[in-house]
């Protein structure tokens, strides 16, 4: 089952749900429109949902959303569904002047469409209340919900990475009075961590080169256009058959310049963007790994606390202190918390294992599609270049006769 990423989300089914045949949900993100003026200006998108999920009233719903709403959804899902690889949202734009360029807006729209559809097709995430809110409430309600997201709930992946790093630092060790790091030490976990971190590096490099490839296509196109113009002028100077040949050469150059610009655009949308998306997904996994480490640390801390509490309790028992009752009570509470922490951690591990499998399968397909588009584009470009130049040869033969 291939999840396509075009604007009109097709039929999507969760393969593991037993009653999957009757349930569907498809979302489209369309019609970007500039709203407001000056510094406050932003882009709004139309989000159209078609579903027969029971929790949604009605088969179709249309709402208006902006970028920060999508970010809100992602953050909420990240908080609630620890262990799941939350689909990434496209980055904020770092350069002000590109914020409203047609190219940037279109790429963002596509990426947001992909994001929402991935959420909607995920077995766990698709029934989340936050998704329903996102897809159905009016703009004012959405704005209220969004502005509540300050403080504890709003944790950026950067913050989580900090937590992750803290886990690896010796500080917590000193606090707990231990030397060894508070981290999982299973080989599978180590392997996974290494894999994810190194994968990000490799992918980032490939994506960087892909982006430069796009630029080179544009530059080659431009230079071919300039060359064509210069050659045409030279042809006018020369006159006769040679002059005509030059003019033809110039004309072909200009045509090919257009082809190159088109291919640059194709590369950007269908090759570079999927690679970027891959990088974002891996970064999202890193955030999930941080959550896992967090949960593990909490479990460890509680386990330590429980141990100490037990020692305390036994001491009090021996001395027949009247603080014993309270201590026993606290001990039981801690044990319950400890059990809960362990359960949370185990759930994350289980989810992650499932997610990894799903992720790998999906990425092979996504990358395969991107490669296919890339190869197709390059082949077409090369062939059109060859045929354009080939058409000049008879005229050139005529020159020398």
């Amino acid at each position, binding site marked *: 089952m291939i999840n*396509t990423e075009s604007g009109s989300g097709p039929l999507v089914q969760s393969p593991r749900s037993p009653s999957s045949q009757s349930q569907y949900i498809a979302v489209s993100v369309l019609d970007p429109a500039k709203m407001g003026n000056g510094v406050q200006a932003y882009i709004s998108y139309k989000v159209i949902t078609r579903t027969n999920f029971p929790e949604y009233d009605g088969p179709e719903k249309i709402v208006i959303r902006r970028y920060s709403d999508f970010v809100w959804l992602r953050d909420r899902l990240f908080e609630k569904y620890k262990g799941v690889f939350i689909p990434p949202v496209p980055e904020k734009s770092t350069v002000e002047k590109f914020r409203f360029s047609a190219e940037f807006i279109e790429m963002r729209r596509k990426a947001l469409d992909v994001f929402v559809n991935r959420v909607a097709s995920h077995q766990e995430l698709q029934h989340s209340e936050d998704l329903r809110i996102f897809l159905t409430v009016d703009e004012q309600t959405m704005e209220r919900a969004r502005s509540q997201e300050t403080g504890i709930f709003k944790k950026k992946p950067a913050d989580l990475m900090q937590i992750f790093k803290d886990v690896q630092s010796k500080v917590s060790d000193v606090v707990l009075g231990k030397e060894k790091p508070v981290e999982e030490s299973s080989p599978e976990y180590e392997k996974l961590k290494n894999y994810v971190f190194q994968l990000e590096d490799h992918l980032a490099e490939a994506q960087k080169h892909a982006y430069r490839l796009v630029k080179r296509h544009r530059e080659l196109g431009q230079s*071919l256009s300039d060359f064509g113009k210069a050659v045409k002028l030279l042809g006018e100077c020369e006159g006769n058959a040679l002059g005509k040949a030059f003019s033809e050469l110039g004309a072909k150059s200009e045509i090919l310049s257009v082809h190159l610009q088109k291919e640059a655009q194709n590369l950007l949308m269908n090759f570079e963007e999927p690679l970027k998306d891959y990088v974002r997904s891996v970064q999202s996994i890193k955030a999930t790994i941080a959550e896992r480490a967090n949960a593990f640390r909490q479990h460890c801390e509680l386990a330590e606390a429980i141990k100490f509490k037990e020692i305390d309790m036994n001491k009090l028992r021996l001395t027949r202190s009247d603080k014993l009752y309270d201590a026993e009570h606290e001990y039981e509470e801690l044990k319950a918390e400890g059990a809960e922490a362990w359960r949370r951690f185990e759930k994350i591990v289980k989810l992650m294992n499932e997610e990894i499998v799903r992720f790998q399968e999906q990425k092979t397909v996504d990358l395969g599609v991107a490669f296919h588009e890339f190869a197709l584009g*390059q082949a077409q470009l090369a062939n059109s*270049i*060859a045929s354009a130049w080939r058409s000049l040869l008879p005229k050139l033969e005529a020159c020398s006769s």
Partner: protein
Amino acid sequence: MGSGKNPKPNNGEREEFLHPLCADDKLQTLTLTGDGENNFNGQVSTSDSYSHYRSAMTTLSSSSSTEQPLFPPPSVVSDPLLFPPQSPSLDSPSYADVMFHPFPETNGNGEISGDDAISSPISQSSSSDFLRISVSDPLKEFEPSNSIVPGGNTYVSYLITTSTNVADYEGSDFSVRRRFKDVVTLSDRLSEGYRGFFIPPRPDKSLVESQVMQKQEFVEQRRVELEKYLKRLARHPTIRKSDELRVFLTVKGRMPLPTSIDVASRMLDGAVRLPKQLLGESSCVIEPQDVVHSAKGGRDMLRFFKEFKQSVVNDWGNARPSVEEEDKEFLEKKLRLKDHEQHLTNASQQAESFVKAQQEMGEIMGELGLAFIKLTKFETEQTTSNTQKVRAADMKNVATAAVKTSRLYRELNAHNMKHFDSLHEHMGMMLAVHNAFADRSSALLTVQTLISELSALHSRADKLETSSSKIFGGDKSRVRKLEDLKDAIRVTEDAKSCATKEYERIKENNRTEIQRLDEERKADFVNMLKGFVKNQVAYSEKIGIEWTKVAEETSRYAREST
């Protein structure tokens, strides 16, 4: 990740230039063959990343047995761009054959003189004689100073090897040592001896300090330029028969051509003579034998000033000069050539930019390919599922195609640079055209000056005659003055007729040269276009084949919705 790039070639160089891959530690895991590659100047390219690149190709190609490394083996053939017969796995359409033919294309005239890796495809005169020149083996030499100041200076000498069957040369193979100063001398003597001809311009003198002069890069650049210059001279139908060139190429030891006196000495000599001329003690007429040379290069300051005055009169005076440039056809051609020069310069620049852009395209393809190779290895090593194996295989296909494309771009660009050399060459010839036209103007100025001189002398003589006829019996000194004047008039008449002959000669040279250059340029450009287009076709087809393969291999991912 640092990039292990060779220095960028300049316009004329044919060094193995930038290759697409960066040296990277992670490539250590690939087998390294480590052999360098000879480029056609006999130098070994020592870049490590180049051998990484080769081994990357070896790793990639090991799986497909039909692939044959398309690198030329380091062989006795000096030009790596002369490929062995095409590899069997590539059955591309007919035009692909073309790129395996060495340059230049013969036009059915048999031998092409100056045949060498550097020369651009050229048309040839119908004669079958050849004059092959090569410049090699730069050596540092020491010249003891012959002034009072002790110590000497070092200079670089080059080995000039000639092989020819031209009759005048009395021999078939020569080899002499020359330094750059000698080349300047040759160039100056040719300018004097062949006024009106389009003499190929010599390489520039360099205003750099002696330390830089001895750096290998600089010396190599100069060697290439010298070789090109001599080849161009050998290509010119008139110059190649000149004594000056012959002597330069064949006479061992010190070059026997008279050296140019530096400007300061000339000025000094002229300045010394001038007062004597003005006082009438030294001859102040322009001698007939001098008129064949331009006033500027000589020691006759008076003549120089006279001609300068004449030029001012031409420009600012009310009367038109008695003789002037009348040849309309010439004036038209001159304008056309000026136009041409402008467009040629523009086209030459754009061609260079285009080559550079294509080069960068090839490089980034290579880097992209490398990145995917690394990813492939990574996924393969870290594989925990079948799907990763599939993905690794997909990546490898893409990487292979990207690396191959990168190499194809590199090869294509090497060809393109050669082709576009014609543009650059003809742009360079414009300087020679300017010089030839300057010769013409200068000769005309001499004629005009002499005519003015004559008329001045005649009017002085007339005045003297009328005034002396008033005195009965005549005045001995006045009679003598009249005699002197009559002498001067005679000499000046001779000079004028010489100058006029010289002027006509130069005009004729201009005319024939314009025609010759036009034909040569047209032929060169036709060849250039043919070669360029054929190569672009061939390589684009090859690149298309590579990507079509990958598209087929990934066709199962094709979107159903499109």
